[in-house]
């Protein structure tokens, strides 16, 4: 038995070792290359060469009773390297395909956009511009100095100011409730209405000392309602 084992051991030749060494070297280098993202995909080339070298080495070793340990190691390393490089290929291919799809989608959208859409878009921008001009106009008109602090105000004038203030605050509350629609023109409108509301509030504060308790209470109620809307909207 021992004699038989010894004969089998000594009978191993160097068949396929040259290809095995070449396969292992190229496979190891391909493996390292495969882990560098810049050139990872290139490792497919040396990886494939290493597989071929290893397989040739394995065939030779089989035919010539050569040692197979190194050749199998070379084959495993080469397959792993080629596999990783192939993953890079799939990743890069996927990104390229997605970017092409996105470009095509944008092109199709542009093609689908007809003259009517463009007209609507232009009108929308023009409307936005008008609203902005109005807002700036209101800001220029903002003049809380109409009444001196503590000045008396007639009942008619108070009624006029508080009614307008109530309407403006209602409009503000409505805009806040629908804020989630995200329309740009609502944002401009909100700015314009806010300026008007601030102007009226400043007027009412200035005449505040001379207001009756009833008038003060009405002003506070309007403010309270506005605050409730703000709280609901979590602003």
């Amino acid at each position, binding site marked *: 038995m021992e004699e038989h084992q010894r004969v089998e051991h000594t009978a191993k030749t160097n068949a396929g*070792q040259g290809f*095995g*060494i070449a396969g*292992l*070297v190229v496979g*190891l*280098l391909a493996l*390292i290359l495969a*882990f*560098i*993202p*810049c*050139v*990872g*995909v*290139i490792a497919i080339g040396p990886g494939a060469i290493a597989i071929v070298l290893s397989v040739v080495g394995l065939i030779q070793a089989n035919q010539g009773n050569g040692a197979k340990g*190194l050749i199998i190691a070379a084959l495993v390393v080469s397959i792993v390297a080629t596999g990783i490089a192939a993953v*890079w290929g799939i990743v*890069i291919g996927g*990104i*390229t395909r997605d*970017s092409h799809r996105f470009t095509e989608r944008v092109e199709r959208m542009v093609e689908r956009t007809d003259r009517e859409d463009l007209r609507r878009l232009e009108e929308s921008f023009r409307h936005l511009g008008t609203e902005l001009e109005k807002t700036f106009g209101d800001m220029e008109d903002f003049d809380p100095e109409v009444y001196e602090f503590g000045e008396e105000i007639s009942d008619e004038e108070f009624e006029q100011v508080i009614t307008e203030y109530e309407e403006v605050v209602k409009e503000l509350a409505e805009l806040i409730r629908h804020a989630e629609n995200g329309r740009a023109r609502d944002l401009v409108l909100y700015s314009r209405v806010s300026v008007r509301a601030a102007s009226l509030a400043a007027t009412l504060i200035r005449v505040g000392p001379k207001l009756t308790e009833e008038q003060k209470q009405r002003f506070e109620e309007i403010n309270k309602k506005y605050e409730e809307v703000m709280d609901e909207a979590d602003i």
Partner: protein
Amino acid sequence: MRLIFNRLFSHPYLWVNFFIGVAFLAVVFYSVVFSPETGAHPIACVYTSITGEPCVSCGMSRGFSHIVRGDLEAAAGTNIHSIPVFAFFVLQIVLRSLGSIAYLQRWLPLSVLISADAGISILGFFLAFSPMYF
């Protein structure tokens, strides 16, 4: 001469050490030849050229060129991963040389030598390359 050659390449381990060592020396040579300032390194990033996006290893060649010129700060600025990866390449040159000498001088049994070599190489590889991915 033939006797020395036969002795130097008497085992597959020595062949593997020789070729792997030469490959890593070629990387060092490549880094010495090409200046980091001119940015004329011939190996372009395949990932960027295909996808148009920069990848995690972009600037590594320039980083290597800075390292061989002793400018580690500039290398880190070009690509922070260039330092550990280059250190791994240098470690490989040292390991290939030491491994071959250890085999020829019979410092260790072959199985122990190859196991230690593989272990150190895998650990070094993980330490150098893992920051790029994790």
